[in-house]
């Protein structure tokens, strides 16, 4: 078990009672503002000492109030990207970045300074003081500082909230690599379901200090209901696919999943790479017949396995497309008009363009 948390903690009028396990290499904490995400992350990092309970990371017990074990924070080797930056004002960016390195045993200094600096686009800031940085620049330096401490666990509290999409798109693959190759498990607090869908292997959903759902990302995300309160339509199915060829004429890449082939805007990954693909429920159109003369390139035939009628106009139709689970979110009206019900054969239509970089993540092969 990578992360094993079972804590109770009071903060003024707020009571946290969180119990979850995660063996995901990237655990996303999701929940509305004030639901206790930062408190959990603080407890794991050692900034908050929980009133009761136990926290273990990769089998190492960090807190066990019953046995009076509380590992001091500097011995936890946990890289923490704070929600509010917390850069050292008296050090320039370079020394902020190198701070954790001073305290990392020489043999464990793996992260490459130049690489991290490059990735985060902060090379031109190295000699500046934090007070002269813009909001997003500060956040990038904070990410770099945590990464360069070569932590055994990385806690990221909304690290990308103030970054633009272009920058995010550059950082996502790095986080994926950390997750898959570096062997550094990550806990990510995020409000963005798209981000979670792309990055998380496990998801913990919090509400008012309680865990209301937790489990592998693919499972939690399929139940769009958890996210209904968030007014979100980013949820959907996560399926695994493999790069089968590159169509250079049209700048497309063709992926092979169990459900069928998918054409997506060209990717740099070599043929054979395993990818996780998020098929957002809201992007999928269902059709009784195979469509013709349409711009949508991806058509996945499947059978309706179940229909979850929720509140409001929308209905989640669960399909089985050659073994891959797919969810389509359509209107109740369409369900009635088309006579959709379990067992009916349909075609799931998805535009290639819908696969923006956020929807496609690299996977180590067994990350779902």
């Amino acid at each position, binding site marked *: 078990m990578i992360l094993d948390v079972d804590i109770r903690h009071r903060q003024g009028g707020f009571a946290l009672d969180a119990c979850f396990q995660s063996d995901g290499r990237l655990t996303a904490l999701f929940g509305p503002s004030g639901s206790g995400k930062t408190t959990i992350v603080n407890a794991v*990092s*050692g*900034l908050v000492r929980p009133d009761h309970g136990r926290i273990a990371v990769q089998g190492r017990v960090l807190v066990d109030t019953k046995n009076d074990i509380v590992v*001091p*924070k*500097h*011995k*936890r*080797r*946990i*890289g*923490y990207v*704070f929600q*509010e930056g*917390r850069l*050292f*004002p*008296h050090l320039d960016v370079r020394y902020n970045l190198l*701070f*954790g390195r*001073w*305290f*990392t045993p020489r043999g464990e200094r793996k992260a490459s300074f130049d690489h991290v600096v490059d990735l985060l686009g902060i090379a031109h800031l190295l000699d500046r*003081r934090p*007070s*002269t940085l813009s909001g997003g620049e500060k956040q990038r330096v904070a990410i770099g*500082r*945590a990464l360069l*401490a070569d932590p055994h666990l990385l806690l990221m509290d909304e690290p990308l909230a103030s970054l633009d999409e272009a920058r995010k798109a550059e950082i996502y693959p790095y986080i994926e690599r950390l997750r898959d190759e570096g062997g550094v498990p990550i806990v990510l607090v995020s409000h963005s379901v798209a981000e979670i869908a792309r990055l998380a292997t496990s998801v913990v959903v919090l509400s008012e200090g309680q865990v209301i759902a937790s489990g592998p990302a693919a499972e939690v995300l399929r139940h769009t209901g958890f996210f209904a309160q968030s007014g979100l339509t980013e949820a959907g199915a996560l399926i695994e696919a493999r790069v089968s060829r590159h169509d250079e004429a049209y700048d497309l890449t063709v992926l092979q999943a169990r459900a069928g082939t998918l054409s997506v805007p060209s990717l740099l990954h070599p043929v054979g790479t395993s990818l996780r693909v998020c098929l957002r429920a809201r992007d999928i159109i269902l059709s009784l017949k195979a469509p013709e003369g349409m711009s949508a390139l991806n058509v996945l035939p499947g059978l309706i396995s179940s229909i979850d009628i929720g509140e409001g106009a929308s209905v989640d139709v669960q399909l089985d497309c050659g073994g891959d689970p797919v969810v389509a979110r359509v209107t109740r009206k369409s369900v009635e008009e088309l006579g959709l019900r379990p067992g009916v054969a349909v075609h799931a239509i998805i535009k290639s363009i819908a696969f923006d970089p956020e929807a496609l993540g690299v996977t180590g092969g067994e990350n779902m």
Partner: protein
Amino acid sequence: MEGLSPEEWTAVRLSLKVAFVAMTASLVPGVAIAFLLERGRFWGRQALDVLVHLPLVLPPVVVGWFLLIGFGRRGPIGAFLDEHFGIVFSFRWTGAALACAIMGFPLLVRAIRLSIAAVDRRLEDAAGTLGAHPVWVFGVVTLPLILPGIIAGMVLSFAKAMGEFGATITFVSSIPGETQTIPSAIYAYTQVPGGEGGAMRLTLVSIVISIGALWLSEWLARRVRRKVHA
């Protein structure tokens, strides 16, 4: 106004030495005690606080008198230090430095305490998560952040040492070349007819030195501030 006599120069040099040593020597204990008082929760904290403030509350002569009783050659601490470490304060310039250090100590400690209270502890927490042992956190985060307070404390301590008179003359007398600092020399001038000129002359020297010290401290503080806020 004529220049200074050789004796007066001696007093000026001695005063500078005494003030500098007093300031420097009280720095480390000052930071430590400020830290204890501001952050510590221990039994006797209140008593320590009162003790640190005493030199301010008591007339300097009384402090000098306590010093004489405690650190004199016949005093318990003085005798002990002399016997075991060969450190002698009585009627030496070191005694003048001790008196000045003690008189300036409450000022130094207060300034540093104020700075410590203003440190954003979340930064110290951040340093902790990056693997820094509390001692290191103090050294590389807290200490640089409280530098302005340390500088202010040093200025106060130095200035106080330049002006300290009552405790010093009571403790180590006013022996030219050994313990006669500028204030003792000024005092001697004020005690005799026609001494006003000499007193004014030395007063001016004191003012000039303090201008220099203040200028230096402001320059340092600006550098530090630029480091922290620029």
